[in-house]
């Protein structure tokens, strides 16, 4: 019989490296037509980070995302970057890109100020225009300013900047200190069906409420969360690299390393928590890694809710859940942590026959 259960888990997760310097640098060049080029040493590994960086650069310059062309990941051409790791790209590289764009923008303001008859500090950039604060009708198209900057003023608008999160070393004895610039928070709730005869667990639905500071691009945030939850389902129920007694990997292929297919992935509902971090670019933090952090815990708690057994070792395979159910039936009244009974199942290292 299938039994329904619900379980929740919350988490916190830091952005960037633990204390260690992890700077990113960026260069923004505004072209004569008011479009821009961003140079970054980070790598697009699928998250959409280049789109995010283009949005941040565009926002700072008051232009649109498509007006920014991103050149990335070439050690000859792009400034250093600590890379696509530690959920740091939006926060660290994003801050660098924003600051580089700001510097280029200040050059544009210097050029535009005398033309608009004000001081540079009185200017703002928005909707492809540079205008006087409070007097939007007094404006110039950003392309005209950029062209003027190069052709007349001889001041090509280029900005470069770098950012490194502020941290404090940890005391080696007590571990006290400030290891990270900022953290994100999240809660996931999973709904599962557990077959109480076979132990099979089916994840029906996962609700994921995630904080990422300002969502620079809500659609890409959703994409990260959906992918993270799917990876979390695999971590919770299916995936495991197994070794034989000699230490050789038994299942180094996608036939026997069981990861979720489209049929094993639940309906995922993403909810973005309103949040703003003053230290991030436009209030943004990050979202890449945290998305899979609470999934396995939420599923394990849902299994407990469904059939009353505590799975203490992952993955919660059907066999493991089944054994735990048998153990529970055998030793009523139940007690917390039936972990010991599961250890045998946890270390199935039997050789292939």
């Amino acid at each position, binding site marked *: 019989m299938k039994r329904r259960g619900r379980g929740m888990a919350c988490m916190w997760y830091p952005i960037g490296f633990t204390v260690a310097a992890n700077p990113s640098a960026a260069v923004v060049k505004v072209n004569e037509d008011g479009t821009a080029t961003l140079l970054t040493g980070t790598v697009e590994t699928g998250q959409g980070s280049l789109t995010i960086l283009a949005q941040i650069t565009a926002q700072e310059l008051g232009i649109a995302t498509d007006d920014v062309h991103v050149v990335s990941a070439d050690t000859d051409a792009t400034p250093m970057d600590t890379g696509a790791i530690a959920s740091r790209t939006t926060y660290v590289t994003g801050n660098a890109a924003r600051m580089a764009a700001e510097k280029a923008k200040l050059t544009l303001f210097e050029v535009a100020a005398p033309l608009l008859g004000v001081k540079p500090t009185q200017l703002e950039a928005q909707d492809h225009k540079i205008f006087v604060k409070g007097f939007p009708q007094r404006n110039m198209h950003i392309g005209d300013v950029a062209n003027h900057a190069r052709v007349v003023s001889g001041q090509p608008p280029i900005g470069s900047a770098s950012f490194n999160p502020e941290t404090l070393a940890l005391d080696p004895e007590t571990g006290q200190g400030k290891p990270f610039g900022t953290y994100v928070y999240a809660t996931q709730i999973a709904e599962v069906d557990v077959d109480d005869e076979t132990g099979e667990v089916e994840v029906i639905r996962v609700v994921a409420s995630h904080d990422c500071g300002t969502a620079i691009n809500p659609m890409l945030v959703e994409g990260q969360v959906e992918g993270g939850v799917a990876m979390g389902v695999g971590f919770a129920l*299916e995936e495991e690299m197994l070794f034989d007694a000699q230490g050789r990997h038994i*299942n180094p292929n996608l036939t*026997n390393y*069981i990861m*979720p297919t*489209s049929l*094993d992935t639940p309906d995922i509902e993403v909810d973005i928590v309103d949040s703003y971090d003053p230290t991030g670019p436009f209030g943004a933090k990050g979202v890449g890694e945290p998305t899979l952090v609470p999934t396995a815990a939420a599923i394990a708690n849902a299994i407990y809710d469904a059939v009353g057994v505590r799975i203490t070792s992952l993955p919660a395979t059907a066999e493991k859940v089944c054994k735990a159910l048998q153990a529970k039936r055998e030793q009523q009244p139940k007690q917390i942590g039936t972990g010991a009974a599961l250890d045998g199942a946890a270390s199935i290292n039997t050789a*292939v*026959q």
Partner: protein
Amino acid sequence: MKSFEFFAAKDSSDAVTLLAQHAANAKVKIIAGGTDLLADLKFAAHGPDVVVDISHVDDLKNITLTEQGLNIGALVTHTQIMRSPLIRQFFPALVDAAHTIGAVQTRNLGTLGGNLVTAVPSMDSGPTLMALEAIVTIAGNGGRRQVPLNEFFVGPRKTILKPDELLAEIIIPKQNLGKPTHFLKFGLRKGQALALVNVAASFWVDWEKNVFLAPRIGLGAVAPKVIRAPQAEAYLEGRTISAEAMAEAGRVAVGDAKPISDFRASAEYRRHLVAVLTKRALESAWTLAQTRRLEGWNGQRNA
């Protein structure tokens, strides 16, 4: 992949001729869907010398109702089985079994014959065909012969096929047409799963006495080859239909299974699954039997 010579057969007699030509002095492999063969050959230390391609052999791609029963050509793909009105009508269990094989892409390539010839104990086509007492036709240079599927498998990845022979068709005998059957598979995930255990249960009903008639149970992944569960079948034969009887038959079937422990599951868990899945397959076959009776099917065993 190691290099080999490649010959494409035009029809089944051409295939048999090609096999006869090469099998005597070379290691020959037949490729049909290729889903198992190519995956194997890519890692094989010693490949075949000759590969005979039968994927263009159209005379082995028919699903036909004949005097003997339902004839399924060996090259019928899993997708064709799923779409065949004849099979959907008579044997939804075969459709279910085909649907659990691999994914759409592999079901489009993979053939029923290939699935049987590979003779992997966890194959999904096997249990249902065993429960329906299927017969296979083998084509060789000297002509054709027929053997019960039960005798076709020898051991893991071993069949009685000789190097110059070809599996031509699979026949479900006429007396089993429409016999209520249900197939269940238990894998480590839903998509592209390999069976930890798969079970097919089939029986006729004597509606007057409310007893099981000719119960047949096929089990996969619990022995060196796909097997029947003779003790469980004997237990059910002539017994009054009840939930308890079906549950007990599941427990009895455990005694018919000889599973091993491997990295996918322990033998103990597989035995447990045999009991649960056999019971459930019997229950679903019973539901199907009742539905068919209501729909006006002749629920008796055919003469």
